[in-house]
């Protein structure tokens, strides 16, 4: 107790260098824990991109590729599935619901997704949240368009605006379907998932813009259908979908259903379980994560080394103090204890301030990060990982404290009661 009291008073006496040291440790600890929080937030928002979907089905190809173009709006689909095949599986007894996706077109860099009312009914993200409309209604007519929240904000679109669709994916599509204007009828609530960056039309709409196309080539000039031609049609026949999401009647049937789909003979197709595919993908990205963590651990080490330097350099001016302590009966062990305690107190204070700083920054920055980056970083009480980090920092402080402590020990033994400089 006496040693702790002395250590604290000694640190308080050197308030300026103490607060600098604590500050630098706090910053590095805040960085460490902050990065950990962002990492967890990223992983959660990643794996929460889609939920309650048991299978994603598409043409045969890579699992990650299917996941990328169906869920994340990245990369391009290789092949489509026929509408008949889709219907066959949609009516399979083990299937409770499906959401069909027709992909391949874009609008000013945003993906256009052809789907139907099942999307609004069944699509779930982040713990089962459903798609909701911020304004307007869900698109149901041929030329209806519903916009993801980011699309509406970034392009400044409102209800009633006309939108053109580009064939092909990319900032500048190579062909504009400009003869068939679509009209915005609804804007979705922000979800912080790729849903925000997509443009939703009906499957009929996708078919309509490709009328007259033969083998991937546009119709000859003058032969393009007009909106009136399209609207005059009683029913637009849907011929294909790119992929579809499946909700199983019973989760126990998912694996069997997946196997059946993979073995389907009439058309080469595959089904992936989103949870598995997502974690497989995350492992691929995980290297960056580890790298980031290593960097922040080094930052903490640098912070602690700063403490070591400041304690070590203070020793020379404290030789007098050590001699006095020796004179009143302090053994070399107490000198060691004093310095190790100082080091531990600095590390602990830094760790606690750093933890506090993380919460201050999180609560201040959470809405901003969520609005700007779409990353939701949950604020929760420190968990096992945080305590582990804090424990490690204090332990490192304890271990590092022995460097100045042993130096002081040797000096104290050598100096005795006289300070020889």
């Amino acid at each position, binding site marked *: 107790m006496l040693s702790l009291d*002395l250590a604290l008073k000694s640190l308080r006496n050197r308030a300026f260098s103490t607060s600098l040291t604590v500050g630098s440790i706090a910053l590095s600890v805040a960085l460490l824990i902050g990065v950990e929080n962002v990492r967890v937030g990223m992983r959660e928002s990643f794996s929460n991109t889609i939920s309650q979907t048991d299978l994603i089905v598409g043409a045969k190809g890579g699992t990650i590729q299917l996941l990328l173009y169906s869920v994340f709006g990245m990369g391009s689909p290789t092949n489509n599935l026929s509408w008949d095949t889709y219907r066959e599986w949609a009516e399979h007894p083990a299937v409770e619901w499906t959401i069909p996706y027709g992909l391949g077109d874009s609008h000013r860099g945003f993906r256009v997704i052809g789907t139907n009312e099942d999307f609004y009914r069944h699509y779930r993200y982040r713990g089962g949240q459903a798609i909701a409309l911020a304004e307007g209604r869900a698109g149901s007519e041929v030329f209806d368009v519903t916009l993801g929240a980011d699309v509406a904000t970034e392009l400044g679109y409102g209800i009633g605006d006309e939108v053109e669709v580009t064939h092909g994916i990319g900032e500048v599509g190579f062909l504009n379907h400009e003869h068939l204007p679509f009209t915005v009828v609804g804007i979705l609530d922000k979800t912080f998932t790729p849903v925000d960056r997509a443009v939703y039309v009906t499957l009929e709409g996708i078919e309509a813009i490709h009328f007259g196309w033969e083998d991937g080539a546009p119709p000859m000039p003058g032969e393009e259908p007009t909106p009136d031609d399209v609207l005059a049609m009683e029913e637009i026949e849907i011929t294909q979908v790119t992929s579809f999401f499946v909700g199983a009647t019973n989760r126990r049937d998912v694996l069997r259903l997946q196997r059946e789909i993979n073995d389907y003979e009439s058309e080469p197709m595959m089904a992936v379980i989103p949870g598995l595919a997502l974690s497989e993908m995350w492992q691929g990205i995980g290297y960056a994560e580890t790298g980031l963590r290593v960097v922040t651990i080094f930052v903490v080490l640098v912070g602690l080394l700063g403490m070591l330097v400041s304690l070590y350099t203070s020793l020379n001016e404290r030789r007098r103090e050590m001699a*006095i302590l020796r004179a009143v*009966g*302090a*053994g*070399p062990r107490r000198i060691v204890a004093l310095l190790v305690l100082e080091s531990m107190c600095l590390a602990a204070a830094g760790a606690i301030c750093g933890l506090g700083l993380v919460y201050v920054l999180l609560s201040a920055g959470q809405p901003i990060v969520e609005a700007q980056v779409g990353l939701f970083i949950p604020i929760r009480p420190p968990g096992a990982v945080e305590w582990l980090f804090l424990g490690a920092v204090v332990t490192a402080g304890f271990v590092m404290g022995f460097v100045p402590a042993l130096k002081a020990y040797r000096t104290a033994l050598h100096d005795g*009661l006289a300070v020889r400089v």
Partner: protein
Amino acid sequence: MSLAIDVRRLRFRYGGGPWVLDIRELTLERGTRAFLFGSSGSGKTTLLGVLAGVLKPDEGEVGVLGRDLASLSGAQRDAFRAAHIGYVFQMFNLIPYLSVLDNIALPVRMNAQRKARLDGAGVKETAAMLADHLQIGDLLKRRVTELSVGQQQRVAACRALIGAPELIVADEPTSSLDFDRREAFLELLFRECERAGATLVFVSHDRALEGMFSRTISLPDINGAAL
């Protein structure tokens, strides 16, 4: 046991250097006020370090209050010093981050025997009483950095005296004071040592103070190590 100090055939050197101390015999009765003088470099501070148990002699016996320090381990000597010896430095006696009161109370907090000798009186009360005796009773709450050199030395004396150690060792505590203050300081120190029945070993190179002591020891005369 009536001898406070009983040194026999003591030899000491730093590392493998030349002998600094070579004392055939040095004895001191309990209750003595001894004046130990020698020019600077004659080994005064080293002898005090040996007597206080900070330095371990290479040869000989160092009897202090009936214990042979030469036969004790480092930790035992530390504990012995904490319990039985009060030490006053020439200057810079105080720990800068402790208040006057905390500086005085330090030995009592460090050692249970010193605390037991307060006879049930509180640490604060005892410190305040000693401070009163040394005429610094109004300074207890002050920061030590605000004190004059003379005041600091009195605080150091209080610290050496608290918990009634049997031996007070003072290493030129008055050398930074002017002459009038030296005498006043010494008189206060003597009175307190007498009150506690403590033996005082007072080191100085300044023989002007010699007359106030009951015994004078010339270190160059008893130290055979030629320096």
